[in-house]
């Protein structure tokens, strides 16, 4: 049942309802932006009525507020506390279930006879068969609606980490295998955005099935462009009109204006070397005075991928489960090696986060770990701003200093206390 393929069309805002219907009819669970608890979050939506029509977000370090716009924009906001990683790399996931087999009457494991009579034999006889079952991978088709360019870059980065090389993640691969991406060109950067600096937006370039450009002049409409064959089939069902040069010009102008209105900037060149040269910079002590080590920045970051794996058993010792959860380099457990945590001080943990994200990520994955979405700045409860931290280090770089530990005067320790370090 082939659908007509339409590469480009112009539709009315009401066509978003059709888009959700078409995707749902094709078996996709549609996840998109919706207002909940004073923020625009990503959640399953059943219709266009759940989209944040006429809402925008005002963001600054440590602060996020929803406000009414004066129009009926569908995508008139930046990015919220959620990212698509919620749906591709779930915060908590059971990996494995292990159950004891037959119980007392079951056969002992092989080899038990050979050591019969010894203490070891008693242990072997007590041992039973175990049944282990990996968690089945999910088979649902998911459509992401309203994916920004920065977020497409974030997904591409996680793809590289979780699907590339020798570390292919089984669950991520299954969730990622059938994702329909309806992207949107970002016309409303937030106060903490800096995608232009990171070269990740605001215009969508690749990695989508279709991309929407919302045109908010007197004639409220959306330009829809297909990026894949299945995207073109969906565009064909939206009953739009043919795009004209004026539509393309208006869409282009909107995304160009967004690029000029970034809330923040970062001088991204040579960040890797800059950070490598400044591992003893006094700024790490200064930021540690402010950092709560609460882990919020890593949890909201769309590229942070760290997880921890825990085995738990029930009271009877009859069943065990292996669970994977989002983990943060701000927790002591994250750097727990034999005998203790190697990054005990907040200074070490903040430095690990920033130098990995902007520096050693390049060595590890051939790209920066930052896409400039600004979430870590907005959702830091005390408003620590990575762009400000990087600028402070660059302004006072220790590069070339023969003895970097003594060359810079340290700022006076403010409220330094043993229990706060």
């Amino acid at each position, binding site marked *: 049942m082939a659908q007509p393929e339409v590469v480009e069309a112009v539709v009315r805002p009401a066509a978003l309802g059709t888009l959700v219907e078409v995707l749902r009819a094709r078996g996709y669970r549609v996840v998109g932006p919706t207002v909940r608890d004073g923020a625009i979050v990503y959640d399953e939506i059943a219709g266009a009525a759940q989209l944040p029509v006429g809402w925008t977000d005002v963001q600054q370090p440590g602060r996020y507020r929803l406000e009414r716009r004066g129009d009926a924009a569908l995508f008139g906001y930046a990015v919220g506390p959620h990212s698509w990683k919620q749906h591709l790399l779930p915060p908590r996931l059971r990996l494995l279930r292990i159950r004891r087999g037959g119980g007392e009457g079951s056969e002992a494991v092989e080899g038990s006879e050979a050591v019969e009579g010894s203490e070891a034999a008693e242990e072997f006889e007590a041992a039973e068969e175990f049944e282990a079952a990996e968690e089945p991978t999910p088979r649902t088709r998911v459509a992401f609606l309203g994916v920004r360019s920065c977020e497409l870059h974030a997904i591409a980065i996680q793809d590289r980490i979780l699907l590339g090389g020798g570390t292919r993640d089984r669950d991520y691969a299954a969730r990622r295998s059938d994702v329909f991406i309806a992207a949107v060109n970002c016309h409303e950067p937030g106060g903490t955005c800096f995608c232009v600096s990171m070269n990740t937006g605001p215009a969508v370039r690749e990695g989508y099935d279709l991309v929407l450009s919302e045109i908010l002049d007197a004639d409220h409409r959306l330009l829809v462009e297909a990026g894949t064959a299945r995207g073109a089939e969906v565009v064909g069902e939206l009953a739009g009109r043919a795009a004209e040069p004026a539509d393309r010009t208006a869409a282009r102008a909107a995304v160009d204006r967004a690029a000029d209105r970034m809330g923040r900037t970062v001088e991204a060149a040579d960040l890797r070397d800059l950070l490598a040269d400044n591992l003893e910079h006094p700024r790490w002590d200064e930021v540690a005075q402010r950092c*709560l080590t609460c882990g919020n920045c890593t949890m909201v970051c769309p590229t942070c991928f760290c997880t921890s794996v825990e*085995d738990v058993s029930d009271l009877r010792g009859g069943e065990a489960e292996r669970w994977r959860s989002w983990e943060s380099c701000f927790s002591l457990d994250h750097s727990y090696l034999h005998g203790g945590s190697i990054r005990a001080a907040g200074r070490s943990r903040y430095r690990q986060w920033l130098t990995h994200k902007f520096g050693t990520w390049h060595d590890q994955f051939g790209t920066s770990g930052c896409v400039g979405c600004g979430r870590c700045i907005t959702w830091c409860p005390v408003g620590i701003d990575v762009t400000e931290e990087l600028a402070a280090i660059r302004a006072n770089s220790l590069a070339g200093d023969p003895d970097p530990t003594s060359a810079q005067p340290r700022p006076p320790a403010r*409220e330094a206390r043993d229990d706060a370090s």
Partner: protein
Amino acid sequence: MRTSASTSPSASPSTAAARPRLAVWKFASCDGCQLTLLNCEDELLPLAAEVEIAYFLEASSATVAGPYDLSLVEGSVTTQADAQRIGEIRAASRRLVTIGACATAGGIQALRNFADVDGYLAAVYATPAYVSTLSTSTPISAHVRVDFELQGCPIDSRQLLEVISAFLAGRRPAISSASVCTECKRRGTVCVMVAHGTPCLGPVTHAGCGAICPAWHRGCYGCFGPMESPNTPALVRELTVLGMDDRETGRVFRTFNAAAPAFLAASRDAAEGGGIHAEDTDAEDTDAEDTQAEDTHAEQ
């Protein structure tokens, strides 16, 4: 009703000799953490099959003499007699786990640590000489070696079962000591501090409750006590930005975990800033404190 470990009346242990012996002890506390165990309705029978519940007065007046394989200790030490009793319990216990804010941090009754206890006694009791009490409320760990501390006011039942299961399996309990924020973010809750401007102790508070309050648009009260690396001065600066004065920031740290070192330091700093005073804890003020905590966490 208090029976020391060494003098517990003995019931016949013969039929249950193979099972580890569990004892549950009460010190100065409200019994809420013991009730958490008692309320594990689905798990109580399986638990009784795996361990011999040898001493648990909240559940049964029948007791079995020690030694015990696992002792769960609720409550803080507030009397000289209790200071001696915990030593006896420790000596009779292979593993000793403290449960709840009282046992791990001194509890709400540690507010006496900031006050003149003799003054309280004179104000409340007709004959203060009948009352034998210490001037402080201290955690169990201030008196004896503790194998594991399970924080919370009250503790979380899932976490308690995890600690017991881990003990039975001979493994480390899977209990995170990171912030409440990690639980908020994992369950997708919108941050009440960033998005609503609601003061919240989540960033300095130990995970374990599942981040209940923020899910209901309330700030965290810190009832699970300090997380592993609490930067309370940094949080207090932000609470001030959100409109709290020294008096309020001091009071939010003087609740169930007031004597936990990080929270104690935070409230002392606030006191030095001109807010609450060291002597500012007479009986009337204790009521005011509860009201204050409500006010500062009111929904916005």
